[in-house]
């Protein structure tokens, strides 16, 4: 019976993919590559065919690529119906229908959700509307920011020194623009790589002429008489004059459209099992709804089955391939999504790459090279195991450490390594911020008086 259903689905079923970016496209290609012959629909809120985002904060801002031409190459024909420029606004799990912003509805037999994330806007709406206050996520954002940088602003102000903010600051310095970066933590990249490596990133910024302000927050953006941003007020009571402000405060997951659908979706993403099948809010796995990419949150066997949300390019590709495979095969042929987390960035001419999950690390050992030279490998340890590694201009070693993570190799690292320096003989605290900061996660409460009428009630949190 079930086998018949899968055969029927593969032959003439209807698959809808919501989200037409990297994950959506690669899933569509995988479905066709693995023999799905039914009807395929891709829904995307942006009016463009799938394009690549990493170049937007690097090659585009450096003038080496056009913001309007980063469309992804296709690996194969996907023969899909494209619904671009129209967002999905609702999901009816019972009727198996996706509602669209133009009032249309699309029916599916199996659904893949790959709606990704968007840039977190500046929270004060009036200030966010000032001319010159920019975000960087879409290609329109990149085109707008590039145009403003080319116009030669007196000073650029970047709020937030994560990877995106640091890459923007790096591009500004290459264009010889004065730039100030404000960061709430003690250094750039602290959330992703910890304080020890963050201190190296801080030195990189200041040596390259960035006016880096740490342990501060932005309290207000001030505009002039015609509504252009003019100055930035900081929590240390200083004021910085700037005519371009780049808000780089991370991202928000695009899950609002699923509110009330019954899926386990909220600000932290959509929870799914290792096979990419979405959970409903009761924690029960669904049969016909799959998730992939930035919006997914899935358990990873190598990291204590913790639910990981990974806003990584490589995760979007790998999870899309696994989800697509699992959507059209029998249960026993399904694969778990066991991708080794990995990402890259480059700033101030330094290539930064990582494997594993650095924020899980309690301790850090510099096993090769040296922090002072900005050329090193750092290994993160958690409860006696290697859980991650980071490299600055030393990427060729990462494959080795990836194998160490996969094998659960012991930490501290006992074996000798090439180019080990005295500073790398023993581990130091990795310096991640206290995770007990306030969060705004969704809540689930139990209601009812007896076990017979007990119900779970889901309270979606506001983003």
């Amino acid at each position: 019976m079930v086998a018949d259903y899968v055969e029927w689905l593969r032959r003439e079923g209807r698959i809808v993919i919501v989200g037409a970016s990297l994950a959506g496209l690669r899933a569509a290609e995988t479905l066709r590559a693995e023999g799905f012959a039914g009807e395929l629909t891709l829904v995307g809120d942006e009016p463009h065919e799938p394009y690549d985002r990493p170049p937007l904060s690097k090659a585009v801002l450096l003038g080496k690529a056009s913001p309007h031409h980063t469309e992804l190459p296709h690996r194969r024909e996907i023969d899909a119906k494209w619904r671009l420029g129209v967002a999905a606004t609702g999901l009816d799990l019972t009727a198996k229908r996706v509602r669209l912003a133009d009032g249309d509805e699309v029916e599916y037999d199996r659904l893949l959700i790959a709606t990704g994330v968007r840039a977190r806007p500046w929270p004060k709406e009036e200030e966010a509307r000032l001319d010159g206050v920019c975000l960087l996520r879409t290609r329109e954002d990149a085109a707008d920011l590039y145009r403003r940088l080319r116009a030669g602003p007196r000073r650029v102000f970047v709020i937030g020194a994560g990877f995106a903010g640091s890459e923007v600051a790096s591009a500004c310095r290459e264009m010889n623009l004065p730039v100030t970066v404000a960061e709430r933590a003690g250094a750039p990249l602290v959330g992703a790589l910890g304080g020890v490596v963050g201190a190296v990133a801080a030195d990189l910024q200041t040596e390259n002429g960035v006016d880096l302000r740490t342990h501060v927050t932005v309290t207000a953006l001030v505009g002039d008489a015609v509504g252009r941003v003019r100055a930035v007020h900081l929590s240390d009571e200083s004021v910085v004059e700037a005519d371009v402000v780049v808000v780089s405060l991370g991202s928000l997951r695009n899950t609002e459209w699923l509110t009330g659908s019954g899926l386990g979706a909220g600000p932290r993403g959509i929870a799914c099992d290792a096979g990419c099948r979405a959970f409903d809010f009761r924690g029960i796995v669904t049969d016909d709804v799959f998730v992939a990419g930035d919006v997914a949150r899935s358990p990873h066997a190598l990291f204590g089955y913790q639910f990981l949300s990974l806003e990584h390019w490589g995760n979007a590709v790998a999870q899309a391939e696994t989800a697509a495979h699992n959507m059209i095969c029998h249960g026993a042929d399904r694969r778990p999504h066991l991708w080794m987390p990995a990402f890259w960035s480059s700033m101030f001419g330094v290539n930064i790459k990582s494997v594993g999950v650095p924020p899980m690390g309690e301790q850090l050992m510099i096993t090769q090279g040296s922090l002072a030279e900005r050329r090193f490998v750092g290994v993160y340890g958690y409860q006696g195991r290697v859980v991650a590694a980071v490299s600055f201009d030393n990427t060729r070693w990462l494959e080795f450490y990836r194998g160490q993570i996969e094998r659960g190799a012991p930490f501290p690292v006992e074996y000798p390594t090439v180019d080990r320096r005295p500073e790398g003989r023993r581990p130091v605290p990795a310096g991640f911020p206290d995770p007990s900061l306030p969060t705004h996660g969704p809540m689930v409460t139990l209601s009812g008086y007896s076990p017979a009428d007990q119900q779970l009630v889901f309270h979606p949190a506001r983003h």
Partner: protein
Amino acid sequence: MRLVVDLNKCQGYAQCAFLAPDVFAMHGEEALIYDPRADEEQRERVARAVAACPVQAITADGLDRTGGVREASDGR
């Protein structure tokens, strides 16, 4: 033509930057910057770069990589 480089795979061997310098360039010692929309006249050079990449990190429109392991291995 469109192209994309999997920079998780890229290890900065710079073969592409030698073979198609108008499309690929090293930025610093190890980081790669590239134009995702190369001119059609670059096709021949990009094809050589795709083939020469030691870690097969480049995907380009209409160019098969020699390894050809793009599709899932158990695809039916």
